[in-house]
């Protein structure tokens, strides 16, 4: 066969195959994430864009969550003293902004407030009537960022909303996070369960809070933090037996900080000996 035949024949075959491929693509279902339009945290826009462009949005959400965990675990990110609502990020939050916030909060504070850095022993021990903590102002943003990348990354929303509501006493911020989660995945009913728990807490309906969190504990996706919070609530209410049961469950946690804390608590409760 001659060279021209091979060339034009190849082009024709390629055209037919490609056209058929385009048709298959147009007919195919495409379960997955909605189009990604912008990052919830401009500081990480480049990192997030790189993940999107490599088809790694789920992994990008994982990285965002790891950064959330590191942020929440870093004492230097806690702002002491005065409370303020969830910062809506319209500009790049820089070190100078952080210093300015500290100066503002110091100039306004009179009574002082224990910093909200991650301390497992204090999770869930605050009352709804306590002052909201100013610590970790970007906690919600990190969760929104993870959820924007992967709207079905439920854990990020549950973790952040739990921390905001029960540890940092910022129920409104927690509600905003959960509402963002509901927009991304309206079918995930546990968001509404957490909303219920936060609402009960606000109204000081402690029994209902306990009941809701007990229900949440049955979910295999329930964050260890929520279990820890529930255990502390039970200790506060004097239900040491139930608290011990929860700590036994927490011994299996993948997060070593929680499993270690649970072990220590069980020693304190006299259930196990070190």
């Amino acid at each position: 066969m001659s060279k021209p035949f091979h060339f034009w024949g190849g082009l024709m075959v390629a055209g037919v195959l490609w056209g058929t491929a385009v048709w298959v693509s147009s007919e195919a279902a495409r379960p997955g994430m909605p189009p990604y339009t912008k990052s919830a945290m401009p500081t990480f826009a480049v990192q997030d864009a790189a993940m999107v462009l490599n088809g790694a949005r789920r992994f990008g959400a994982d990285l965002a969550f790891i950064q959330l965990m590191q942020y929440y675990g870093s004492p230097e990110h806690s702002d002491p003293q005065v409370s303020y609502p969830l910062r809506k990020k319209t500009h790049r939050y820089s070190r100078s902004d952080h210093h300015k916030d500290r100066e503002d909060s110091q100039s306004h504070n009179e009574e002082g407030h224990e910093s909200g850095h991650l301390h497992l022993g204090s999770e869930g021990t605050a009352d709804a009537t306590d002052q909201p903590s100013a610590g970790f102002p970007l906690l919600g943003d990190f969760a929104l960022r993870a959820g924007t990348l992967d709207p079905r990354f439920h854990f990020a929303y549950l973790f952040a909303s739990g921390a905001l509501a029960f540890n940092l006493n910022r129920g409104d911020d927690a509600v905003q996070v959960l509402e963002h989660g509901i927009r991304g995945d309206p079918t995930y009913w546990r968001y509404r369960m957490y909303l219920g728990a936060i609402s009960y807490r606000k109204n000081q309906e402690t029994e209902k809070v306990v009941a809701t969190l007990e229900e949440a504990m049955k979910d295999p996706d329930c964050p260890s933090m929520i279990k820890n919070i529930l255990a502390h609530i039970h200790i506060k209410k004097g239900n040491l037996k139930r608290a011990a049961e929860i700590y036994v469950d927490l011994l299996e946690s993948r997060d070593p900080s929680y499993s270690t804390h649970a072990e220590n608590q069980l020693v304190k409760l006299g259930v196990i000996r070190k």
Partner: protein
Amino acid sequence: MRSLLAIARYTFLQQFRNRLYLVVVLFGLLMMGATLLFGALAGDQEVRVILDLGLVTAELFGLATAVFGAVTLVLEEMESKTIYLILTRPLPRPVYVVGRFAGLFIAVAVSIILMEILHFGLLYFKGWTPDPAVWMALPMMGLKVMVMTALTLLCSLTFTSVPTATVFSILLWVLGHFGNEIRFMGEKAGGAAVTLAAVFCAILPDMTLLNARDMLDYPGFNGSVLGHGFLYAGLYTLACLALSSALFSRKEF
């Protein structure tokens, strides 16, 4: 058929005796081990992070071996003139192109399989329970790499320059993942932009259809998606190979 198998076999052997290929695979295996470190930072989500990072690692390193292998596959042979003794044999040129592609893809698939064996070993060690969605994601990953291997081969024959072909291939990989966003922006802009976006997405490889890694938790990710993925990837790959054969048929040495 014998000729095709012979070409595929020596291409496969050539990859395994290529130092760059071995270095990339080794690095991929090391990175797989590093997923444990990332997982430890994620607390309760350790298994999810190991799963996701492992899939990304295997795919990206597989892509690297595919792209670096494909850009040099034919170009190097043309420059070194080893191609003379092949093309002077009664071997149709399309058979040469397809055989080279097949040998390279099999070598890349083996590298991905090795990395995934390690990956799943780590996951089982961490108490992961097998998920049907993940088993479906693995062949889809292979399909993405298959499409990129064919596309890169086409780029190498089109541009006849290794750096240009490499850059262009990576650009197509990236833009292929941006299809949903391109269509979305076209719809937002309206008018001619919709058609332009559609044309652009038709030319680009539809990586969003094959990107099963990001579909794992989503309802509707089922056998139908897998079937469409196989069909699309197969057709697109064959189209690239047909175009490559057409271009190669005109090459003089």
